[in-house]
Structure formats: structure tokens, C-alpha cells
């Protein structure tokens, strides 16, 4: 506030904080709680994990006092590389299958009559009401060699007698897809709900067949939903350990299992922390690439497009 203003205004007004000052105060006071929350429950633990990765282990299962790079170097040995590769491809496979299923489902639900939409969404989230572990155990029953799914498939002849569905990678992928599917459907449905379906008619009008209109107009139109769904499935899939543990076989160990094993069975916290740091980097690098990639695109799309995009979120 410049001094000329202050003198010109009635005294009662000069006591009031300037609009700019008040705005800043509001902003800070509104974001402070969530900032503190993030600081204490996310930043501090993450920093601790990061720090522990560079500590020595002590024999009683605690953390030693000196620093070392050995543990993190250890993570890059051949054995871990295999598991890391496996973790990445399984996560990609699960994410891809989830998206392939979620896109048509999200599209379909958003095209239904208003009356049914909420019921259909309810069906999507109902599985989440049951404990995650219990649902995995339920899948153990379903996929069991004598369970209904395998016996049915074998009896119709879809799979041969010697194919098993439990305790192998197939089981891990089936159950992972099942667990994450709801989370993939929701953002895609939300994006689809905002999508202007008259654009599909416009594409058809201009000569595109149904499939081309879907690929050229609908998929780019719900891009944000697809990206969200991708992240929301891919990131937890990278860190999953309960599913491979319960329905996977000997060759199904993922990075998450290694971390759990080091932390709980071996009581070697630095090693668990080191694997976690590597895993976190694996998640963070594509994420940062996405954020920066998106940022660059927005810059040339102009300020107006950016505000539009933001207000649409």
C-alpha cells in the first residue's frame, strides 16, 4: 500500500490489512495444516528412509551408527536386477490390462442413464469394502487347482489339464488386476463424464468410423483420466508384496517382497531402506518426466489453455 493511499483513506480503513496482505495470510494459513501434515507424515519419514539406506546395520536388528555406501551398491547386483526387471514388467502388464478393461467400462458407465450410473459406480467400489487380504485369500480359493474357475475352464477345454492358475505369475497378474481395477475405472469414468460426446458425432460426421472416432477423439479427450489411472495403478503395483506373497510361486518374488523380507525376517533395516530408495527412484523418475513433459507442453499451449486445464481439474 503506498503512503498516498494511506493518508487519503478514512482512518478506520487504514487499520485494515491491505487486500494483498490478507490474501497472502489466508493462503498461508489455509495451506499450513496440510503442509505440516505432509512434512511430518511424508517428508520426514521419506528422509529417514533415505538416510537409513546409507547407514550400517547392527547385529541386533537395529541401525548402526556409521555411514556406508555399500548397502545401496549391493542393491544393484545381478540378483536384484532380475527382480527389478520382473517388478517393472509385471507392473506394466497389470497397468496395461487394467487400462484396457477400465477404458471401455468407464466409457460405458458414463453413457448410461443417470438413474443407473450411481448404481454401476457402487458396483465398482463395493469390492473395496472388504479387506484387501481377505479378497486375496478368496482368490486363492477361486484359482485353486480344484477351485471352480480352473475346473470349469479345464472341463470346457479352454485350458489344458496341466495348466495351473495358482502360485505362479498368472495368478499374481490376475489378482493384481482385480485389486487395482476399481482405482483405474474411477478416474477414467470421471474424465469420460466431462468428455463432450458430441465430438464423437462430429468425427463420425466428418467420415470417421466408430473405432477411428474412438481412438482419434475419445482417447485424447480423456487423456488426463488415462494418465491418472496409469499412475494410480502403476505406482502401487511396483510396490506390491502381499499379492505375490499369497498367490505367487517361487519365481514371483517382487521388489516389495524383498523389502518386506529384509525389514521383517532379516531385521536388516538399512538394506530394506536401500531397496525402497531404489524403488522410489523408479517411481519418481517417470513421474518427474511426466510433470516436466506436461509442463513444457502447457508453455507452448499458451496461458489461456493452461488456466483452462487447471480449472477443469
Amino acid at each position, binding site marked *: 500500500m503506498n503512503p498516498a493511499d494511506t493518508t487519503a483513506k478514512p482512518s478506520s480503513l487504514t487499520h485494515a490489512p491491505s487486500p494483498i496482505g490478507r490474501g497472502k495470510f489466508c493462503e498461508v494459513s489455509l495451506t499450513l495444516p496440510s503442509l505440516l501434515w505432509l512434512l511430518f507424515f511424508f517428508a520426514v519419514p521419506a528422509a529417514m528412509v533415505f538416510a537409513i539406506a546409507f547407514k550400517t546395520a547392527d547385529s541386533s536388528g537395529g541401525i548402526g551408527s556409521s555411514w556406508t555406501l555399500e548397502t545401496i551398491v549391493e542393491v544393484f547386483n545381478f540378483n536384484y536386477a532380475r527382480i527389478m526387471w520382473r517388478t517393472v514388467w509385471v507392473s506394466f502388464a497389470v497397468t496395461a490390462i487394467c487400462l484396457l478393461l477400465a477404458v471401455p467400462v468407464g466409457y460405458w458407465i458414463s453413457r448410461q442413464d443417470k438413474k443407473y450410473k450411481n448404481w454401476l459406480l457402487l458396483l465398482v467400489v463395493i469390492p473395496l469394502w472388504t479387506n484387501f487380504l481377505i479378497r486375496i485369500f478368496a482368490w486363492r480359493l477361486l484359482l485353486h487347482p480344484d477351485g471352480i474357475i480352473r475346473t470349469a475352464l479345464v472341463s470346457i477345454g479352454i485350458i489344458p489339464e496341466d495348466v495351473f492358475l495358482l502360485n505362479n505369475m498368472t495368478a499374481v497378474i490376475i489378482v493384481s488386476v482385480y485389486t487395482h481395477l476399481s482405482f483405474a475405472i474411477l478416474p477414467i469414468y470421471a474424465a469420460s463424464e466431462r468428455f463432450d460426446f458430441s465430438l464423437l458425432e*462430429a468425427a*463420425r460426421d466428418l467420415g470417421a468410423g466408430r473405432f477411428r472416432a474412438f481412438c482419434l477423439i475419445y482417447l485424447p479427450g480423456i487423456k488426463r483420466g488415462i494418465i491418472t489411472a496409469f499412475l494410480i495403478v502403476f505406482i502401487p503395483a511396483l510396490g506390491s508384496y502381499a499379492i505375490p506373497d499369497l498367490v505367487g510361486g517361487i519365481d514371483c518374488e517382487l521388489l516389495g517382497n524383498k523389502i518386506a523380507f529384509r525389514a521383517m525376517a532379516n531385521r536388516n533395516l538399512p538394506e530394506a531402506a536401500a531397496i525402497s530408495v531404489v524403488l522410489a527412484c523408479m517411481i519418481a523418475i517417470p513421474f518427474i518426466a511426466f510433470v516436466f513433459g506436461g509442463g513444457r507442453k502447457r508453455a507452448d499451449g499458451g496461458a*489461456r489453455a493452461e488456466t483452462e486445464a487447471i480449472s477443469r481439474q
Partner: protein
Amino acid sequence: MSDFFELVNVDKSFGEHHVVKDVCISAKCGEVFSLLGPSGCGKTTILRIAGGFETPDSGSVWLDGKDVTALSPNKRKVNTVFQNYALFPHMTIWDNVAFGPRIAGMKEAEVKKQVGEMLEIVRMSAHADKRPDQISGGQKQRVAIVRALINYPKLLLLDEPLAALDLKLRQYMLLELDRIHDVFGTTFIYVTHDQNEAMSLSDHIAVMNDGRIEQVGTPAEIYENPATKFVASFIGDTNLFDATVSGIIDSEYMRVDIAGLGEFCAFNEHKFPAGSKITLSIRPERFRIFADKPSPMDRQNFIKGKIIDIIYQGAQTRYWVEVNGMRINVLQQHNRCYLDQKQPTWNDEIWIAWHRDDVTTLPKTRD
């Protein structure tokens, strides 16, 4: 010349809701044919049937001598300018216009040439690299039109293309549309609820009400000779009077008794016999105002009334004249002859006169 585009006995219901009722229209090659009617009367539905987005429950759609009723939208040589433009938001203006040719498999060099020409025609070349949310409504409109026309459709469907624009822009785009129609010579089916748009652009107008076609004709025919009460009141302002034919004067004229006003002469276009219940329509601009009782004039009717409201409109003044409790809408052009007279004011007792040929008679069958 045979008709180029035809809807034959088209019917369409959504559930219980009968939206299009036995509609027949036919447009000639190269003309602008308008569907004019109030909102909700089924115009968009008819356009969607023409574009292939809805299938009629019964009836057929003919284009250039072929029955296209069952053809899907991408197989019809018909393109649409949607009411909300429906430009693809993730594509540049250039890519939007190039969409049709690319889908059709045109070589990229040829696409480039054609898109360039099209954008030139609507003066949008400078905005080719922008996205739809970075250009104005009028510009979107022009892009939507060339995006459709670049496919050289046999028929261009336009759904209230100017409805979203403000008045000035609307007037400009109306001229622009006329020019584009001249450049391409494509047959336009133009949907609007705005009679001025329809009047100034169309070769023929079909006036719709509640799913039915009330009248088809040239703008002048529809204005001068409305076939129904609805058309008379929807197209321009008019005064409608319930009347009874009280006598036949000769082969051309009759005496009519307007309830509450008295007996007058009118042109008996439809040869109503005495005793018929009819509706009369007299346009406000057909009345003339006199301060004193005019001396009996040839073929004129006149009646005494009181001015109860005056609305100055620049080029003209609108008077509301009360006669026996009835309000009559009278419009006087501000020509020199009129301005030189003493201007009537509120509560003045005046006389209004009209020629017997200026009365349009409507059968009192349908409202």
C-alpha cells in the same frame, strides 16, 4: 428439376414423446432451405435424421436420388455444423479442418493445399496453429463451417449456427454465411428459431411447430400469406382477430364481423362462404394513424381508438392502440411525410385505417 434432398413422411418419437410428426420437406440443389420454429419443436431432431445420427421410426430420407435412410453418418455425403461447433479441443485449427480429408485418406500434400485454401476463404490462416479455446466464437463458427465444407458435402446441415453469438457478430456472420454459400454453392439446410436469419438467408423456409411443418414457402410467401395462425404470429409481429364472415360483397371481397370491433371489408382469398368462422391477421405496419376521422377512402377500413403506449424505435414508432378493450399493435415508419404531421401522444383519441387487401384471412381450423 427434381428435388435434391427430401424427407418423406418422417416420424420420430423418443419413448412417449412424439417429436417429429409426419414431416415432408424437399430442398432443391444449391438452395438455402431453412427450418424455422420455436425451440423444442423438433428442428434439431430433423437435422439429426438428415445427418444420420437418428433413424426415423418411419419415413425415408432421400439425397440426390438415393434413399439414404439406413446409411450411417460417416457414409453420407452430408456434413454438419453443430450448434456448439464441436471443434476438437486437443487439435489445432489446422488439424481440425484437415480431419475430414485425412480420414478420407487424402495425400498430405493435397491436404495441406486444401486446408490452406479453406482457411484463406474464412480468413483464419493467421490462427491455424491455435487451439479452439484460444479463438473467439465467431472464429470457431467459421472454422466449423470450413471443417465441414472441405469435404465437399452434397448437403450442409447448420444447427442454429449463430445462436451463440452476440448481435453484431450475428449480423456479420449472416453476411459471411451468405458469401460462403455463394462460393461453394452447396445446398444448405439451415435450422434456426430466428425469423430474421431465416428470412435474410433462405430461398425457402419451412415453418415448424410442435413437430409439424406448418407451411413451406419463400420468405415473402410466408410473411405475406401465412397459412396458419401460428405462422402469422411467429413470423414478424401481427394482430390476430377472431371474426365471422357476415356477407359476401363480390367475387373478391367479403364483409367480416370482428367480435368487439364491428364490421369491415376484407379480401376473401380463400372464398369463405358467409357464416365461416375465421381468423384475420393484420400486420402492424399496414395501419395508418390519423388525428381526425379520415374522409371515407377507397377500399379502406377505419376505426377510432386511444393511444395507450408509445415505443420509440428510431426508424419507426410502435403504438399500442386500445379499441373497445382490445389492444392493437400499430407501427409507423418515420418517413418525412409522417414526421411532418403532428405526433400523437398518450391518451390521444386517433383513427387507424387499413386497406382491405392488407387483411390476411386464415381458416380457423388449427391454432
